[in-house]
């Protein structure tokens, strides 16, 4: 009995059960839902969010947050697109994109740690800056880059798994190992769990935070590439709102906003759940406006449910 309770308290298992239930119910109503091609489509739909959720979960676990991720992703993608449009090589364009968002992440990390400011507000501000720069580059129009990023969709591993899905899963695996198995990751968890204690234990708290923001920035560029590939074009505003979705996925997955708690797998399952909900509602033919309401309601329910277990903890 006690074990059963412990299992139900584990956010990951709870989410997996919810996802499984949805798959079974929706699959019975509409068998199309459980076809392999549709399941792959769901993964493809969440691939951008999946990578961003990894960045966000690292930062939230470290006790921070980054609300500029969406705009940072768009900026990185805009840089890549505009270079491709100028006929530069793919390698150069991608390198520039990765550098752009890495610098953005470093910038966030430096401001937050140097001036001891609240990440929530600072990153809202820096997000505006990134958005403005994207607008300056893109000029408010669609940047088309002649299908040069299509390979992310079209190359399929084992004839089934699109490259972008494989990359997302790789990011999840990387972040999972980083947070759980490495000294860096465990120190980040320690900082998020009890910053004062981490400092008194001799950890260079500032440095670790800066690295976390920078690393998250670097990873954001991957999400940017996937986004550009999926849209086959990019605009300066293409990323807005993604940061909030990533935050919701984290919280649903048991990564609590006070830091130091939660798992990468949980966050990924949270992200997958949003994809499953959205796809299921489409397949069931739910009206688009009603779909928004239902999505919101499921998010609220999931977060309330996960909070009940933390209420018990106190």
């Amino acid at each position, binding site marked *: 009995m006690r074990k059963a309770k412990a299992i139900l308290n584990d956010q990951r298992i709870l989410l997996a059960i919810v996802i499984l239930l949805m798959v079974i119910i929706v699959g019975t109503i509409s068998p199309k839902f459980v076809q392999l091609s549709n399941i792959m489509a769901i993964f493809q739909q969440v691939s951008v969010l999946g990578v961003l959720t990894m960045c966000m979960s690292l930062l939230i676990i470290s006790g921070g947050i980054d609300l500029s991720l969406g705009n940072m992703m768009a900026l990185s993608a805009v840089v890549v697109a505009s270079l491709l449009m100028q006929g530069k090589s793919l390698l150069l364009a991608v390198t520039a994109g990765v550098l752009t968002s890495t610098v953005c992440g470093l910038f966030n990390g430096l401001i937050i740690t140097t001036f001891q400011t609240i990440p929530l507000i600072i990153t809202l501000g820096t997000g505006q800056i990134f958005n403005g720069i994207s607008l300056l580059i893109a000029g408010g129009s669609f940047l088309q880059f002649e299908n040069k990023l299509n390979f992310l969709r079209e190359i399929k591993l084992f004839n089934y798994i699109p490259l972008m899905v494989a990359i997302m899963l790789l990011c999840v695996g990387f972040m999972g190992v980083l947070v759980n198995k*490495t000294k860096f*990751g*465990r120190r980040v968890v320690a900082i998020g*769990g*009890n910053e004062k204690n*981490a400092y*008194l*234990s001799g950890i260079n708290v500032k440095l670790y935070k800066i690295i976390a923001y920078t690393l998250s920035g670097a990873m954001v560029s991957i999400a940017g590439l996937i986004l550009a590939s999926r849209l086959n074009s990019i605009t300066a505003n293409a990323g807005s709102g993604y940061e909030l979705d990533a935050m919701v996925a984290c919280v649903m997955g048991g990564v609590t906003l006070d830091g*130091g708690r939660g798992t990468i797998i949980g966050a990924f399952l949270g992200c997958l759940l949003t994809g499953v909900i959205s796809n299921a509602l489409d397949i069931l033919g739910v009206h688009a406006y009603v779909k928004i309401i239902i999505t919101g309601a499921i998010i609220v329910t999931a977060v309330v449910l996960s909070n009940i277990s933390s209420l018990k903890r106190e």
Partner: protein
Amino acid sequence: MNNMNVPLITLRSISKEFPGVCALSDVSLDLYSGEIHCIVGENGAGKSTLMKILSGAYSPTSGQIVLNNEIYDELDPETAQNLGIQIVYQENDLVHSMNAVENIFIGREKTKKLGFVDKKSMYSEAKKIMQEFDIEIDLSVKIENMSVSDQQFVKILKALVNNSRLLILDEPTSMFNIEDSTKVLELVKKIANQGISVVYISHFLQEVLDIADRITVLRDGVVVKTYEEVKNITMGDLTLHMVGRPIDKFYQRDKIKISEEKRLEVCDLKLNKNSPEVNFFVKKGEIVGIYGLVGSGRTEIVRTISGADRFYSGTIKVDGVSVNINSPKDGIAVGIAHITEDRQQLGLNLCHSVLENLLIVKLQQMRKSLLYDYKKQGSRVQSIIDKLKIRTPNLLQKVIYLSGGNQQKVVLGKWLITDAQIYIFDEPTRGIDINAKYEFYEYMTELVKQGKSVIMISSDMPEIISMSDRVLVVRDGSIKDEFTQDEINEQNIVCSALGVAI
């Protein structure tokens, strides 16, 4: 005890001043390898300050720390740890979402190639130390699922893996039952036997007499006595040294005639299901002092009376009528003013003006109107500002810029404006200078002269003794003793608070 001749660490004439208070003056202390040195004293005697200087969390105003023939004017946490000084703080300093072994090695993780954490070798090293000192805990359990006593062992283990030479334990058993305390004490003896110097701070004098090799008594930031031998000492001897202040430490207050009418009665109050019942009363014109060690439950009791916390059962009567107090709003409605313990967190809106802070409670009682202009309310508060001599350039000054004493006056002022009848002061003069202190004593006397009633919680022994008409001593959540008139003296109060037979 080995190596009795050369001290491991010597503290030379350490003094520490905080604004308005001298926490330590001219404290000298030798600490030897392998000894258990206990430090005792009342609340605020300077024990924790001294330990924080030793562990590098504070730097001393003057004095020196000698270690390894090196002289340090101050230490910082990193240097102290590198020198082998480890401190186990009273408050929880673990990461709750991580397991025991990870907590033990935070900041000193063992790694394999590529920065991967080597859990196996951390487990085996922790196991080794656990065997050495006979500690038994499950290292894979998360801290949040551990008992308080196991958490304490984790903290001690964390200190031990870092090659400690001096281990400071600040009230390690304060939250334990007797069985768990015994385990901790056994552990402390083993640690000392390994040649590590242990500094042990505790309020439990029996515990201290059981394990100490030497005992130092602190009072008001001064070393009163260091016992080189503990064989023939009794708890009575220790308490005698903890008290015994010179007469000029005490304020002389005008005593006034107390009415026989009870203003506030607290009957069978239980804070939660299993807590003891609390009964007491306060008469009109009376100052009742409440003394107890930190953690004895004094603040919790008054918080329920003012409505800040809910209680489990019991009745509260004001002027003989039983009242329902479920929130601070209810408390205010029956005329209870609660001058809370922490003025910066609980008593004030620091970035608001003096005017707004003074009116925040009164506002609820004023005639309701939709719009409200703070700046036109100056006349309401001017008399209070004059009366309390609040030094502020103008009414719109933010209180964050006032001195501690003036901030505390603003807290009192906001309640005086409401014309409350019962005033609860929780540590009213902590951290304010002596002149402001005396002014506060005058205001309190003034209040009881007007027939109002005062409950005063204080850790400041001279304050309790000179101000109170009656003293209640709280221990383990219940009122253990009541002292009046001649019974109000340091010896009685300290013995009662510590649970020592007089």
